[in-house]
């Protein structure tokens, strides 16, 4: 078999794999251009006259804008805060290795270990007692907390990979710790920062349970809107579901497309800093 043919075959297989995984998502996207009975049609419709009515209806809902805004604000603010604090902590863990580093790193991971419905329970009672329910600030901080463990882990890996000689050079030249952290270390671990941002963004973006329980009218995000308005007249509103989902997966998909390289490098947890 000629090399070119085998390579062509190889590439075809790769694309096939990608398309198989994408197929269910594609089906949702396709459905968003159908009418309700077209979505349920048997045999399934692949060729049809697409309609934009579902989108027109979606964007006409005043609730959509509000919830979308909430999704954006909550997820962006939460991951920014989380990555900022995590970066500082990761720097300290990596550079100074305080006595309890390993234990603290483990404790941080334990936040992730608790099943959502277990974690939400005491948090809910706490939010009730302090009157924090349905507040932007406390909601954001809560999401930030959930994003911290992963960020610290990833960033510590990256900072470990940055030679401490940079710090020393900086110090010899009279730089403060602040500028060492911000100007010397930060740019070198950018892939880790971006990976942490994106991963946590995807999590907060799609989070339903916490928002549903400790959020409320003010802070409800799109997944909550999705779950709430899913039913219509007792049935499932398939057109609403498919069009809203399509709109909602666009931002994370775009992020994955543009920051793919960072994601791949990011997941090496700092062991590689070049191309992947």
């Amino acid at each position, binding site marked *: 078999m000629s090399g070119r043919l085998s390579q062509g075959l190889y590439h075809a297989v790769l694309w096939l794999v990608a398309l198989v995984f994408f197929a269910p998502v594609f089906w949702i996207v396709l459905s968003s251009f159908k009418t309700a009975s077209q979505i349920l049609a048997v045999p399934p419709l692949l060729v049809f006259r697409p309609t934009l009515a579902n989108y027109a209806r979606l964007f006409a809902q005043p609730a959509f804008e509000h919830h979308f805004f909430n999704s954006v604000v909550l997820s962006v603010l939460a991951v920014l805060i989380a990555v900022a*604090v995590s970066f500082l902590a990761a720097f300290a*863990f990596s*550079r100074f290795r305080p006595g309890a580093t390993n234990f603290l790193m483990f404790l941080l991971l334990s936040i992730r270990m608790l099943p959502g419905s277990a974690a939400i329970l005491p948090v809910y009672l706490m939010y009730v007692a302090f009157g924090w329910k349905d507040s932007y600030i406390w909601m954001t901080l809560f999401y930030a907390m959930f994003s911290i463990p992963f960020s610290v882990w990833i960033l510590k890996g990256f900072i470990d990979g940055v030679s401490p000689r940079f710090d020393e050079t900086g110090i010899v030249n009279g730089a403060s710790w602040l500028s060492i952290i911000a100007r010397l270390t930060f740019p070198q671990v950018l892939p880790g920062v971006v990976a942490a941002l994106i991963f946590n963004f995807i999590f907060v973006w799609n989070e339903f349970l916490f928002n549903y329980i400790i959020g409320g009218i003010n802070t409800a995000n799109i997944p909550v809107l999705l779950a709430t308005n899913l039913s219509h007249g007792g049935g499932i509103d398939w057109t609403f579901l498919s069009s809203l989902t399509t709109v909602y997966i666009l931002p994370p998909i775009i992020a994955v497309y543009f920051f793919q390289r960072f994601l791949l490098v990011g997941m090496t947890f700092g062991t590689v800093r070049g191309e992947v």
Partner: protein
Amino acid sequence: MSLAVSSRRPFASRHRSGLIAFFGRREVLPAVLICPVLLFFIVWDTIPTLWLLGLSFYRFSLTSGRPPIFSGLYNYTSILNDAETWFDLSRTFIFVLLAVGIETVAGMLLGLLFWRSDRLPGRRVALTLLFAPMVVTPVAAGTFWRLIYDPTFGILDWFIRSLGFAPVRFLSDANVAFSAVLAVDVWMWTPFMVLMALAALASVPKAELEAAEIDRLTWLQRFRLVILYHGKFILMLGILLRTIDAFKTMDLIFDMTYGGPGTATELVAMTLFRRAFEDFNMGSSSALAVILLLISIAFTVTFLYVLYLRERKAALA
């Protein structure tokens, strides 16, 4: 990489006056840097966990209108004496084992497949499509999969029927429902393991691979001795993260089967949610949550122990 290990080198700290200098001192700085994370940790993890622990010793139902009554270990004994708990737990363990196992193997294989695909036309688009399942809101994914799985309206059964087979009742047959839910989890999270596998492969030094090729190692040997040796850390981390998350699986179950038919897809996270936010039985659900937390910690300790061993070996070498 060896440089990172030797970071214990004392720095000459310069004398400066004022608050900034104080915070900048080597003894103080780490504490200052860690402080914000610690604060988050105390407010949203320590306090709620202690709260949870405390509640677990009380009989307390929000809807009973009665104040909490201290009941010692009653909640724990009644959970552990309930056969259903053990069924739910073992079902969950099987789910985690199968889900993480399949996702890891499939992720690794696909990772190897995509490893040398630099010249693939539209590689970035292809990878984005491959990673897409990860970003779909679980609420939407669960509901739509219910449609895809529907024997009457679903595309999957239409396919099966047009091939001349009897329709499969994916979510309503107690024997199939578990696998059907598992398959959706695999669809959603294999891409994550592909990502981890690609990262792991990227961490393998090219020079060693070339050396292996020159030494005429077999494919399997190369995989075991070179790739796995270097990529183990990242892969293990991926498995750890997936294990923790699979143990918590709830959204998909909630939207697809609600734990049914019967108890076929009842995973502990679902039981817990129900006990806490349908029954509002706060005492009993806290106790269950504490049990689950302990199990998760046991998972993680085991994993980290393995990881840490590797780190120490590396440090010794």
